């Protein structure tokens, strides 16, 4: 049996089947070890898949041996491989670091259930990515969403509950909109396979239902992806979730919805519909710009560490969307690159926040005084990831911002205005990251916080590795860059 041929299916099946088994591992620590081993295994599968698609190939898999348009197809290309790396990498990194923080936040007897939900989120997210079937994507989207509601509400903070309820409402409406869109397309084309849809949409005579479907799918997925102004669920859900859950979800959950959005708009709708290119760009670009500016401005005045970072996440989604809205090779590869780099930077920042949260009960900025003396390594890692978020040369964030600016300049006179937006928002990022640095390094410590020491070595080590990766991929960006470029080529080719 050729194991390599079954990797796309194993990528989903391994975490999904281990999720119920983890529940049985009741003794303390075993559930964590099991979940981490499974996450590492899926990361290894993702790496193997990436190697297989690195030269621009696509790995296809027919579930149950049924051929593509009739059976459920899985497919992995450069774009999905990059997302797979981000999702499995974030899940693994967060789990490796998670134990001390989870032990502190979640009572021992509920931990196996918690880790099981974690693996369900993972399998749902990778399921969305490898799926080449519109309805299958919906099912996996709901698996990952339902499980992530459980993760977010699992912590000791009661404010997480109303936040999750709001997320559940908005997430379900988003998924239902997506379902309506898929139904309308199925009505007109008679297929659910994405590649088949793309081929058949050209033959549809009455284009109106397809236009409506494009609207429903774009809005539905924008809700899931927290595109401005549909981001209302993000700040509270990220702030009050258990700290390690925030690391995992902030690094990848919204980006997977963006991935589906990009897939649909480029592979299925773009250029098959009259003027869709312009409609899509004109619809998305203002939202992206508003999102970048307003969310960055909000982040500048936020007083709570995690909430500040959550606002910044909404702005970063704006950057990704801005590159997508250029409908160009450079824009798409900049966006894809930014998905990867932002996951690194924001994952690192939230990991450092989890380190701080392990010692400080209260993460409001005015409570964090003196942290640099008590937790020097955490603060150093925070600064490195913060620089990457701003886009300082030598860090990963610089690469994608530079690519984004280059892509913006291709738009002629308009381009300069867009460059101004990117530069102003980067300055805003300097301001909000500086506010945290000021609190960590220059603020007088609060009286009660005398005995605080460095976070447990387990979290610290992972945080340090992620910080180093931020620098590593700033200097040697070849692998993600190659993936991003062939992803952009695939997306634009798919629309022709």
């Amino acid at each position, binding site marked *: 049996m050729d194991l390599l041929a079954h990797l796309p299916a194993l990528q989903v099946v391994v975490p999904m089947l281990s999720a119920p088994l983890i529940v049985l591992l009741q003794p303390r620590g075993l559930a964590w070890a099991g979940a981490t081993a499974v996450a590492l295994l899926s990361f290894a599968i993702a790496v193997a898949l990436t190697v297989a698609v690195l030269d621009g190939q696509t790995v296809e898999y027919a579930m149950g041996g049924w051929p593509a348009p009739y059976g459920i197809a899985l497919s992995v290309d450069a774009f999905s491989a990059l997302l797979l790396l981000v999702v499995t990498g974030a899940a693994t990194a967060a789990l490796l670091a998670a134990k001390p923080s989870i032990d502190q936040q979640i009572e021992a007897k509920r931990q196996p259930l918690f880790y099981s939900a974690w693996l369900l989120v993972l399998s749902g997210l990778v399921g969305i990515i490898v799926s080449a079937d519109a*309805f299958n994507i*919906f*099912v996996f989207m*709901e698996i990952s969403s*339902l499980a992530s*509601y*459980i993760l977010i*509400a699992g912590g000791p903070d*009661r*404010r997480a*509950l*109303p936040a*999750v*309820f709001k997320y*559940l*409402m908005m997430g*379900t*409406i988003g*998924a*239902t909109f997506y*379902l*309506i869109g898929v*139904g309308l397309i*199925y*009505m007109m084309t008679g297929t*659910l396979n994405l590649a088949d849809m793309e081929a058949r949409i050209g033959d549809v005579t009455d284009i109106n239902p397809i236009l409506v479907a494009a609207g429903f799918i774009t809005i539905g997925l924008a809700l899931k992806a927290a595109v401005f102004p549909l981001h209302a669920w993000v700040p509270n859900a990220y702030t009050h979730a258990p700290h390690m859950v925030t690391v995992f979800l902030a690094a990848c959950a919204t980006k997977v919805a963006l991935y589906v959005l990009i897939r649909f708009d480029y592979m299925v709708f773009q250029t098959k519909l009259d003027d869709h290119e312009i409609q899509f760009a004109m619809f998305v670009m203002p939202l992206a710009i508003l999102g970048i500016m307003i969310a960055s401005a909000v982040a500048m005045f936020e007083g709570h560490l995690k909430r500040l970072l959550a606002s910044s996440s909404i702005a970063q989604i704006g950057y990704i969307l801005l590159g997508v809205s250029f409908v160009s090779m450079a824009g798409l590869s900049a966006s894809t690159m930014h998905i990867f780099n932002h996951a690194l930077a924001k994952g690192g920042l939230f990991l450092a926040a989890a380190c701080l949260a392990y010692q400080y009960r209260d993460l409001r900025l005015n409570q964090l005084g003196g942290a640099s003396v008590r937790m020097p390594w955490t603060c150093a890692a925070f600064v490195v990831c913060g620089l990457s978020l701003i886009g300082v040369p030598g860090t990963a964030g610089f690469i994608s911002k530079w690519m984004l600016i280059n892509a913006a300049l291709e738009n002629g006179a308009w381009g300069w205005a867009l460059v101004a937006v990117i530069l102003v928002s980067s300055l805003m990022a300097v301001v909000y990251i500086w506010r945290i640095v000021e609190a960590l390094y220059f603020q007088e410590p609060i009286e009660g916080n005398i005995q605080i020491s460095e976070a447990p070595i387990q979290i610290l080590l992972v945080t340090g590795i992620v910080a180093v990766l931020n620098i590593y991929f700033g200097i040697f960006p070849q692998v993600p860059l190659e993936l991003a470029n062939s992803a952009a080529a695939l997306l634009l080719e798919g629309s022709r």
Partner: protein
Amino acid sequence: MNLLELLGYFNYWVFAIILTVGLYAVISKTNLIKKLIGLSIFQSAVFLMYITMDKVEGGTAPIIQADVEDQIFSNPLPQVLILTAIVVGVSTLSLGLAMVVRISECYGTIEENEILDAD
């Protein structure tokens, strides 16, 4: 478009109305249980849309019989799809209700504005 054509789309009109009713309840109600009811109504509208589109005029259940030739069948695929979507809807609803139970335990109320005031 004449009246008969309009009536011919009866199921789709009902779909649109139910969808809006559900969405309205989700947005306007402050009681969390009522919000969930709205969400459920909203989702069932989509079930109706899928069930409607599989109907083929004069079609029957897709079961192949030995002695019958050239039988017209309704499309079974949307029914299968919506069966899955119903399961998703049920699990969403039950998870939502579980959240409401925990909110009620922690806050002592399930009115949205009172919860906001409590924090």
